[in-house]
């Protein structure tokens, strides 16, 4: 999945929203381990502070550290992806209420049916749109394709989603859960 680049300059480095939502992979504060998006440190006295982006600060503990270089980021993500490929669903469930055996929608195979278990907390607008389209916990989905966008059918409705939206929809395969 491509990382969404923020347009407002190097200082505004943020995590990709899907990583933020899961908090599983992504940059973490080296001191306190918070996965909240680091802020530009803004060393006030420095004349270059507006453009530099060389120091990031953790919003939780205030610890300052240099941002990850794109090379290490690529390496870390590649490792994380490789790990997921071998181990299977490795992401710890985000919420307490998240049932075991649930995984993000795009991990279904093509043509597989599943039941939606939860939508992880996201932007309220996104939730509202999904709910309005019938993508709600309990609804049955059929994954039709993954590229160039994820296409699912819910009831009689066919819906195309961006992959990062689909990642936030947790489902359980129709055969593995208690419900048919």
């Amino acid at each position, binding site marked *: 999945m491509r990382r969404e680049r923020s347009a407002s300059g190097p200082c505004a480095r943020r995590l990709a929203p899907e990583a933020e939502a899961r908090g599983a992979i992504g940059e973490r504060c080296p001191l306190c381990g918070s996965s909240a998006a680091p802020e530009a440190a803004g060393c006030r006295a420095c004349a270059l502070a507006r453009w530099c982006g060389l120091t990031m600060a953790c919003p939780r503990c205030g610890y300052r550290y240099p941002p990850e270089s794109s090379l290490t980021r690529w390496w870390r993500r590649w490792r994380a992806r490789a790990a997921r490929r071998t181990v299977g669903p490795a992401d710890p469930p985000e919420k307490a209420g998240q049932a075991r055996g649930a995984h993000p929608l795009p991990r279904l195979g093509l043509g597989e049916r599943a039941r939606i278990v939860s939508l992880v907390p996201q932007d309220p607008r996104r939730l509202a749109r999904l709910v309005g389209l*019938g993508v709600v916990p309990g609804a049955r989905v059929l994954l039709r394709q993954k590229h160039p966008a994820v296409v699912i059918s819910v009831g009689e409705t066919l819906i195309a989603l961006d992959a990062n939206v689909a990642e936030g929809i947790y489902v359980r395969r129709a055969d593995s859960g208690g419900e048919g």
Partner: protein
Amino acid sequence: MAQPAVKFDASHGRAPGSFPIVLVGPPNVGKSALFAALTRRYTTVANYPGTTVELSRSRLAGAEDREVVDTPGVLSLLPFSEEERVTRDLLWDGSAVVLLVGDAKNLERVLFLALQLAEMHLPMVLCLNMADEAAERGIFVDAAALGARLGVDVVPTVAVRGRGIGQLRAALSRARPARPLTAYPPELERILERVAAWLPEDLPGARGWALAILAGDDTLARRLRERVSHEALRAIETLRRKARDLGPEPLSYRIAGAQFRCARELAEAVTRRSRRGARPGPRSLRALETLAVHPWAGLPLLAAVLYLTYLFVGRFGAGTLVDWMEGGLFERWINPWAVAAVERVVPWGWVRDMLVGPYGLVTMALTYALALILPIVATFFVAFGILEDTGYLPRLAVLVHRIFRRMGLHGKAVLPMVLGLGCDTMATLTTRILETPKERLIVILLLALGVPCSAQLSVILAMLAGLSAAAMLIWAGVIVGVIFAVGALASRVIPGRTGDFIVELPPLRVPVLSNILAKTLARIEWYLREAVPLFVLGTLVLFALDRTGALGGLERAAVPLVRGWLELPPQAAGAFLVGFLRRDFGAAGLYAMAREGMLDARQVLVAAVTITLFLPCVANYFVIMKERGWKVASAVAGFAFAMAFLVGGLLARTLAWLGWRAL
């Protein structure tokens, strides 16, 4: 509790029989078709979500004192988007009869809205449109049972064929509020009741207000502040915070979730499905549905669609029809006749010139507008209408999603861009279907810069058709390249975020001929009204400039730019000048020059690229100004102007350097 000084209910003293009828429903369920059937007036109907972007008002046919309002489609009445807010605000005034329109195939989605309307205590009638499509799929809704449960009339209709409209009109006089059936989680319900208790007693639909407040509807909070005491406001705020602490999810989601669950249960209770997997409609269409969005099988289909469109618009419209209209009708009949008539009737030389001279109203303005451009615009509108009604366009959005992400957009942005091939002005209005200001701005910029409208496209294609396939490819390559480069750059420079790509794909349908004809006629009328006056104005300006000798002066002034930089003959300056009014007008002028053999192959190509990237037309400029303010409009126009000459000049240089001739 103290009674508020302000009167809440604007409807007091008026009978519901005189309330306006407001059509509300999810996107793409046929509200506009129903609107047309009820009012016998046409608004644009198409098979993709977001066709209606503004409220349209009209009168009920046969009861002219009754107003009918068509609204943009909404997924929810807890508003999150501009259209949803517009619709919600219209309803909150409390003096409307709601005609809720839904699609029997997706019953739970319209029931979701019905339950929200029930909380708002608005009189309503539920209309299940597209009953034929549901039946084809083996889905039958027991309208009577549903009506009994909700406590309102439920009428199945097929609006495009006018079925069920009579029953619907009868039911409208019996409109009444539905029963609020939603069961919220008990702790939420308790808070809800307490919030509602703080609201004034004469407020209809207090529960609806309370829900909206809890869901975090900020615009509503502002309206509320004018109407309730400080004490109540503070108490409500405390309750709202308490409700927010109930769980990790946003409150709006918890509320909507409860409503949707109830809607689904209700839908399941009244729907009967005959034999599973009943294949609806022609089988070939269902196969195409999957094929059209397939990552690679979709591409040949796309190519076929484009090629057919080109055959129809480019060959038939721009070739056969234009030859017939211009070469036959105008050159042979109308113009000689007009010249003869004017010469006999009008004694003054300058009036003659104004009517039939080289910059004459008949010989230039009408010939360009009606003979050169109208046939092409008309064929494009027919082709686009067919594409709209089949439901292919949202699938196109899926296919191009990946590429558009590179431009900081998502696939949905392709809809205004394709519509821009018809008319950039209309397309600029349609950018409202995009969610964030950033996306809208990028698309508006790209439309104004590089998407040629059908009128212009046709003239340019006609110009290039005289050259070679290579010229056509170079032109297309340069334009597409500029669009992508500018898009990618703009997405980096313009701050803000991109909205989510969540698009509903409507079923592919066989278009209804009458709808396409009605739509084409409405659009042609619109084109004539907008374009012809501008052509006349532009011709008059040119004529005045020519008479006073200012045209020569302007051409001389433009020599460094037009001749030195673009390497075109100085007369082209006149064409660019009218290009300020409409790009297609400018293109038509260049086309006329090319036909007279004043341009060589390289110059034709450079002229075509420059005029394609030229300023948006005046109407488009005004629409941008309306949507984003004059600063943005001027910036867009200035950028397009600079970009057009920059790219045109660079192309001229590159071609000269390569020694390119029409291969």
